[in-house]
């Protein structure tokens, strides 16, 4: 069975290639079948392989497959080779399964677009690269996928290229992530020069023996890899590209900018967890970055009026949670939240996409309202997603995944009360902006009429994802409630379990089951409080159908804490200025200067050549005189 591994990756690539070459000449239906079919087939192969892996392989022995030797230069010999273990399987599952659903949704969604085949070609290409990323057995192949998904993100953000703004957003996304990628590449150089291999497993095995915990080299390497992760996962300070990336079509936002690509950073850190454990400074930096990000992005989400931007900031914020989990060593919690988040966030994006589409490309929530009666399926599924996002207790999957993180932020040996409080604050903010979005969009007075009813193709994925957002949480329940550990057990084949604090971190605070009960209660109260506040502020309030007026502070949050302004002033403008002032290249000017000096000499000498015979004869005579004089005087 395991020989089929390469098919999972190859199918989307084949679909992409086929669509790129022949897409123009294919009828839409054929293009759709190829585009959706390739990913769906890939998902089926994944399911077969995955079941095989779960049943026939209880110890979780990784499946390894080498296709061909990629490069082979005196020890530098990464291959095109795959490595499937529980962590990559989780990611592959989300990528292919959620990916297939989103593809299915996208077929009717993009039906009228002139670049239909091009769209699916890019989407398939993305799925292929993403799978390559998570399946790669060496860092170079991982980097190939890493850059590949960045490229597809670029292409899809700029998909509607006729609007220059989309192109700029795409370029920004690619450039900002490339900053992180470059840091990561330098990290790879360090790894290669130390271990003379780029094979991930080999390095992870070798690292604890060669590098002392907390040593400079380990810290530097981990820090550089973290740079890559921050860029891809849109964490502070490289988060600015993601809100702009909402220029992409909604299925793209769902697939790339919510479910899969932006979580590549989480994957990278989880994959190289050994390195991060050797560099405690960096690991706590991960937690701090996550914590800062979840607050920064959450605050920004509250003030957005564009429904997709709310979701974008929400994504940044939720990935912040995952980073917190990674930072405190709660590996399986991070991956669990990744999976659940992929379900509900893509659901939300697809729902938002439906709303935007039927309202004639209207993004402003203040111009929506009252849609719950008109689009019941979209409303109910969206509501499920919103509940999961706000982590409403007991019933939603989001509660179980997020609660796990918040609890571990407190209970893990690397956790602290500050992180816990930040997590709680984030939960409150999340509930607030989520239900603000729900109330503004679906309740209140109707300000616009839906243009059409959407078909089954778009509804089915919503329902499936809503279902997953409900039941997904029950595969992993906290110790005190049922103690189901299907997921964490599965993940712990690869990643270590969280080490709880032996004694209570902070004296005087309770620990153990009692503490967990209390923490869950607090978390539940906090999210319900957020909901309630949103209800008070936004339910059925007569807002004008326009962009809201904001005071400077609100404006500051609205602009994402003015990070863009800062970068523009500090980085972009100096670079542009620097390249403008020296457009014509001083060095070239130097050579031109040399040439013009020669030209001056030429002019001077040319003036002596006046064509007068007597002048020349005179010069001869003077020359003779001078020569003679010199001869005589010596």
């Amino acid at each position: 069975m395991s020989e089929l591994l390469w098919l999972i990756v190859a199918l989307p690539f084949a679909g992409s290639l086929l669509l790129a070459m022949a897409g123009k000449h294919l009828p839409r239906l054929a293009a759709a079948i190829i585009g959706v079919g390739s990913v769906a087939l890939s998902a089926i192969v994944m399911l077969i392989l995955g079941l095989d892996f779960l049943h026939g392989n209880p110890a979780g022995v990784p499946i390894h497959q080498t296709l061909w030797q990629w490069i082979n230069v005196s020890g530098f010999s990464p291959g095109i080779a795959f490595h499937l273990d529980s962590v990559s399987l989780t990611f592959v599952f989300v990528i292919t399964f959620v990916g297939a659903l989103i593809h299915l949704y996208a077929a009717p969604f993009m039906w009228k677009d002139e670049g239909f085949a091009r769209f699916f070609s890019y989407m398939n290409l993305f799925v292929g690269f993403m799978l390559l990323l998570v399946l790669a057995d060496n860092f170079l192949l991982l980097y190939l996928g890493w850059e590949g998904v960045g490229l597809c993100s670029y292409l899809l953000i700029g998909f509607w290229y006729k609007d220059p703004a989309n192109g700029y957003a795409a370029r920004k996304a690619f450039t900002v992530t490339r900053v992180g990628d470059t840091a990561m590449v330098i990290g790879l150089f360090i790894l290669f020069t130390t271990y003379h291999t780029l094979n991930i497993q080999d390095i992870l095995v070798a690292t604890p023996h060669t590098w002392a915990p907390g040593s400079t080299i380990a810290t530097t390497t981990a820090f550089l890899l973290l740079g890559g992760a921050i860029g891809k996962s849109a964490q502070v300070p490289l988060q600015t590209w993601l809100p702009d990336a909402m220029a992409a079509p909604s299925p793209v936002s769902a697939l790339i900018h919510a479910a899969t690509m932006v979580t590549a950073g989480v994957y990278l850190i989880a994959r190289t967890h050994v390195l991060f454990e050797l560099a405690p400074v960096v690991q706590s930096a991960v937690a701090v970055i996550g914590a800062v990000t979840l607050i920064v992005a959450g605050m920004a989400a509250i003030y957005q009026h564009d429904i997709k931007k709310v979701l974008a900031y929400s994504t940044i914020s939720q990935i912040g949670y995952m980073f917190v989990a990674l930072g405190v060593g709660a590996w399986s919690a991070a991956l669990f939240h990744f999976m659940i988040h992929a379900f509900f966030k893509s659901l939300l994006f697809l729902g938002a996409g439906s709303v935007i589409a039927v309202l004639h490309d209207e993004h402003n929530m203040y111009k929506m309202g009252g849609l719950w009666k008109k689009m019941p399926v979209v409303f109910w599924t969206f509501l499920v997603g919103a509940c999961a996002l706000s982590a409403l207790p007991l019933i939603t999957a989001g509660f179980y995944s997020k609660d796990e993180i918040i609890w571990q932020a407190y209970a893990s040996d690397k956790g602290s009360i500050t992180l816990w409080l930040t997590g709680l604050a984030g939960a409150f903010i999340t509930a607030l902006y989520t239900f603000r979005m729900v109330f503004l969009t679906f309740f209140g007075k109707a300000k616009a009429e839906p243009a059409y009813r959407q078909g089954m193709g778009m509804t089915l994925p919503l329902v499936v994802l809503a279902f997953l957002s409900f039941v997904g949480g029950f595969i992993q329940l906290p110790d005190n409630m049922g103690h189901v550990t299907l997921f964490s057990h599965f993940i712990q084949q690869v990643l270590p379990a969280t080490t709880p604090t032996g004694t209570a971190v902070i004296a005087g605070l309770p620990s153990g089951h009692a503490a967990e009960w209390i923490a869950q209660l607090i978390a539940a109260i906090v999210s319900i409080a957020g909901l309630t506040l949103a209800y008070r502020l936004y339910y059925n309030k007569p807002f004008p159908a326009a962009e809201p007026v904001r005071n400077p502070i609100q404006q500051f949050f609205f602009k994402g804490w003015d990070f863009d302004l800062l970068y523009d002033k500090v980085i972009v403008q100096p670079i542009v200025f620097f390249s403008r002032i020296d457009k014509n290249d001083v060095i070239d000017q130097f050579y031109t200067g040399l040439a013009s000096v020669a030209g001056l000499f030429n002019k001077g000498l040319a003036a002596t050549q006046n064509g007068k015979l007597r002048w020349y004869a005179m010069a001869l005579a003077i020359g003779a005189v001078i020569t003679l004089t010199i001869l005589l005087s010596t």
Partner: protein
Amino acid sequence: MNILFYIAALIAIFATVRMVTGTNAVHSLLYLIVSLLSVSVIFFLLGAPFIAALEVIIYAGAIMVLFVFVIMMLNTGSGGVRKEHELLKASTWIGPGITSAILCGEMLYVLLAPAFHPMNRIEIPPAAVGALLFSKYILIVELAAFLLAAGIIGAYHLGQKPKLSHHRYLKNEEAAT
């Protein structure tokens, strides 16, 4: 006999100066001939009768005839004469004059320095000259032949009148250029 040398030398200098400063081309030409003739006297005195003869025949004879022809052909009239009056202005001649004077002075200084060395009066017959020409200097003789041939062809080519174009368009074109 020595006195003859000095007289010839003085005449040569005097005639040359008059030639250079003269305004009428024909007069100058005559002075030039006088100068050449007196130099030929000196040649004779120095024991080179063949060269003296050549000087008279070729220089004073043939070459000067060429000059005469050209002056006759061009017949510049009085226009040239008027221009040459500018010679009288100091600014015209002072620079070249000083340069030449310095050159002359330096040469004199060089020539007067070495010790006395007499010029022999032993006559060297043309036969000796001829023998030398066609033995030791044969290569240069041939080169000189080339030079003369080139001179003839050049003179022929340059002396040609420009071809008349009989077509009126071409004529107009030429007039325009």
